[in-house]
C-alpha cells in the first residue's frame, strides 16, 4: 500500500461534521444562500418498509391469488357531495402543477389515470385544457397562491382539494425560480415572464379553521353541493389538524407526510419540518376514530408512497386511499439515464452532468432543465417526454401497484383491499412499532402501551 492510499484508508470522518455537513457549511459560507431544490426528503426516515404483513397460514385463511377476486373499488366524498368520486383503485395521482411539470406530463398523467380508472389532480397554476380533456376524474386544487384559480374550472372539476400545506414543507410557501416561468406559465399565473414566483404560505382570504368552514361552504355553494371537498394538510400535528378539517366540513382529508416531494423549496424545510408519513397516518386515523367519523370522512395518505406494499400498509393502518406524486414522476423517467423520443432510447447522462448531477441523484426540478423532460418548460426538453409514452409508463406503474396491493390483501385473507386492518401488521423496529402502534414482530409489545396485547 502506498502512502496516499494508506492515509486514505485510515482517515476517519467526523460523525457530526461529515462531508455532507461540511459541504453544506462551505456552500452557505461561500454564497450566503440556502439550497432550494426539488424532490422529497433524502435521508432515511421511519417508513412503511419498517412494517411487514402477517400473511395468513392456519389462524387466518388466505385467498387464491389467481382465482379469487379482490375488490379495489374506492369511493371518496360520501359525506355531503351529491356526486362522490368513484375509482377503480385506491391509488390516486397527487397534485403537481403545470409550470412545475410540462404540459406533456400533465396530459400523460390524465390519460394514465383515465385508463386505470383513477383520478389525477391539478396544482398551482390552475387547470390546462389538455389536462381536463385527458382526465376522466380530475381533482382541482384551491391553493394559497390562487394562481389561475377560476370558477369555471371549479365547475368543470370532479372534486375540489383545498390545500393547506404540503408534506415537504408544512407551514411554508413556495419559491419557483424564474427559469420555469415561460410565457404560458406566466400568463396562467398572472406573472411577468421569467420572474421568481413567490407563493404565499396561507390562504389570502381566511385565517383559521372557523374561516375554513365558511370557505368550504362557499365552494359547495359555487358547485351546488355536487363536488366533494378535500382538505390537504402537510403532516405535522395530524391528530389536531385532521379533527379541525373534519369539523370544518371536509368530505375527504389528505395527509401528506414529510417524504412528499416538491418542485422547489428550501432543503432545510424538506429535511427538517414535518413528520414521517408512517407517524402521520396513525394519528390521522386516530382523529377520525376519536370523532366517530371513520368511514364517513375518507382519508387519503401521501408522501413517499412507492410500492404496492406501501399502499397496502397505508390501507391497513386505516387510509381509504393513497396519493402519489414523486414516484409517478419516477415512473415517467425522472432520474432515468435515458429518455424515449420517436420510439428510440436516447442517453440523458451528459445533460445530468451539465447540471452537476447524475441519473439517480438528480433533484434539479427547480432549474427547469430536467434531462428527461418531466419537470421543465423548455420547448426542446419537454419533447423528451411524449404523452403517449408517459401515459403508458404511468399506467403500467399504477397497474403494478394495484396488483401488488391485491396480492398482499389476498395473502392476508381479504377479498377487498379495504378490509386490510392493523392486525395484519407488525413492526420491524421499535420506532415503527411506536409510530404505527402495531406490535414489534415476534412480540406482543407495542411501545408506549403498558398492557401487552395478544394476537
Amino acid at each position, binding site marked *: 500500500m502506498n502512502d496516499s492510499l494508506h492515509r486514505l484508508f485510515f482517515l476517519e470522518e467526523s460523525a457530526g461534521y461529515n462531508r455532507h455537513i461540511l459541504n453544506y457549511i462551505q456552500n452557505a459560507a461561500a*454564497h*450566503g*444562500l440556502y439550497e432550494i431544490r426539488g424532490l422529497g426528503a433524502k435521508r432515511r426516515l421511519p417508513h412503511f418498509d419498517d412494517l411487514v404483513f402477517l400473511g395468513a397460514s392456519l389462524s387466518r385463511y388466505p385467498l387464491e391469488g389467481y382465482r379469487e377476486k379482490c375488490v379495489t373499488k374506492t369511493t371518496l366524498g360520501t359525506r355531503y357531495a351529491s356526486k362522490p368520486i368513484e375509482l377503480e383503485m385506491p391509488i390516486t395521482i397527487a397534485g403537481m402543477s403545470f409550470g412545475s411539470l410540462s404540459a406533456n406530463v400533465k396530459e400523460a398523467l390524465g390519460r394514465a389515470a383515465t385508463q386505470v380508472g383513477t383520478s389525477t389532480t391539478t396544482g398551482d397554476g390552475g387547470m390546462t385544457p389538455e389536462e381536463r380533456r385527458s382526465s376522466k376524474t380530475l381533482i382541482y386544487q384551491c391553493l394559497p*397562491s*390562487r*394562481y389561475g*384559480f*377560476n*370558477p*369555471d374550472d*371549479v365547475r368543470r372539476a370532479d372534486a375540489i382539494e383545498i390545500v393547506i400545506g404540503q408534506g415537504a414543507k408544512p407551514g411554508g410557501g413556495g*419559491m419557483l*425560480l*424564474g427559469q420555469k416561468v415561460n410565457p404560458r406559465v406566466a400568463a396562467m*399565473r*398572472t*406573472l*411577468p415572464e421569467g*420572474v*421568481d414566483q*413567490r407563493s*404565499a404560505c396561507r390562504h*389570502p*382570504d*381566511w385565517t383559521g379553521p372557523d*374561516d375554513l368552514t*365558511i*370557505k368550504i*361552504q*362557499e365552494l359547495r*355553494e*359555487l*358547485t*351546488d*353541493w355536487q363536488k366533494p371537498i378535500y382538505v390537504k394538510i402537510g403532516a405535522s400535528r395530524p391528530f389536531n389538524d385532521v379533527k379541525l378539517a373534519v369539523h370544518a366540513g371536509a368530505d375527504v382529508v389528505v395527509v401528506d407526510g414529510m417524504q412528499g416531494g416538491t418542485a422547489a423549496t428550501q432543503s432545510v424545510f424538506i429535511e427538517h419540518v414535518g413528520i414521517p408519513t408512517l407517524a402521520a397516518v396513525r394519528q390521522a386515523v386516530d382523529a377520525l376514530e376519536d370523532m366517530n367519523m371513520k368511514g364517513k370522512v375518507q382519508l387519503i395518505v401521501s408522501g413517499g408512497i412507492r410500492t404496492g406494499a406501501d399502499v397496502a400498509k397505508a390501507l391497513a393502518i386505516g387510509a381509504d386511499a393513497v396519493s402519489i406524486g414523486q414516484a409517478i414522476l419516477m415512473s415517467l423517467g425522472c432520474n432515468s439515464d435515458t429518455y424515449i423520443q420517436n420510439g428510440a432510447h436516447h442517453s440523458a447522462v451528459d445533460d445530468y452532468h451539465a447540471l452537476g448531477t447524475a441519473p439517480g441523484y438528480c433533484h434539479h426540478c427547480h432549474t427547469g432543465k430536467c434531462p428527461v423532460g418531466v419537470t421543465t418548460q423548455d420547448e426542446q426538453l419537454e419533447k423528451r417526454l411524449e404523452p403517449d409514452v408517459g401515459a403508458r409508463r404511468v399506467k403500467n406503474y399504477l397497474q403494478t401497484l394495484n396488483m401488488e396491493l391485491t396480492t398482499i390483501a389476498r395473502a392476508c385473507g381479504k377479498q377487498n383491499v379495504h378490509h386490510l386492518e392493523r392486525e395484519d401488521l407488525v413492526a420491524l423496529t421499535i420506532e415503527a412499532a411506536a409510530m404505527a402502534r402495531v406490535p414489534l414482530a415476534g412480540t406482543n409489545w407495542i411501545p408506549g402501551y403498558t398492557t401487552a396485547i395478544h394476537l
Partner: protein
Amino acid sequence: MDDLTFDLNQTPLRQVNQFLHDNLQQYAGQPVRIFHPNGAHNIAVGVNAPIEIDIFGHTGYYTAGMNQLANITIHGNAGPGVAENMMSGRVHVKGFASVSAGASAHGGLLIIDGDASLRCGISLKGADIVVGGNVGSFSAFMAQAGRMVICGNTGDALGDSLYEAVIYVRGTIKSLGADAQVEPMADQDYEAVNELLTKADFTFDPNEFQRIASAKQLYHWNADANQEY
C-alpha cells in the same frame, strides 16, 4: 319565478343561490333583490350572468365570491372576503368592508364606499378596487396585477411584495411594505385614477393621488434581502 325578490328570513340561502345559478339569462334586465341578509355568509356566490342583484342589509363572508358578469350591490356592510376571486362584473359595497376584500380577484370592479379592513386586495390578480375610505395593514400584499384606488389613508406595509399591480393613494400611507415604492404619477396614471373614480362615482381630484408600485428588487432571488421574502 316571476318575482325576483327573496327574503332570507323566509327562503334558505341554498335556494337563493341555486336560483342565481339557474336560467338567469331569461331574467336579464330584471333586478334580483335580497332582503334580510342578517350577516349570512356566501350570498350570491358563483353568479355567472349579466344581471343586477341588490342585497339590502349587512352580509357575512364571501358575498359575491367568484362573481362573473353580475352587478351586485350590497346596501350595507360586507364581511370578510367580499368579491374574493371575482372574475368580472361589478360589486359595490355601500358601507364598510371587512378583511380581505377583493382577495385574489382576477377581473371586474370592486367599489367600497366606506373603509376596508386589513389585507384589502391581497393577492390581487387583475381586478380593480376603489375604496372611498381607509384601508388596513397589508393591503395589496403580493398583489400581482390590477389597480387599487384608495381615497383615504392606509395602514402598515402597503403593497408588500407587489408584482405588477399599481396602487393609488390619496391620503397618508402609514408605511410601505417590502419592495413597494412611491413613484411619480404619469399621464396614464391620472387617466386611470380618473376612470376608476368616475366608475365609482367619487369626485376626488386625481391630482391628489400618489402612485405606489413595485421596486422589482424581489423579482429575482436576492440573498441579501433575506428578511424581505
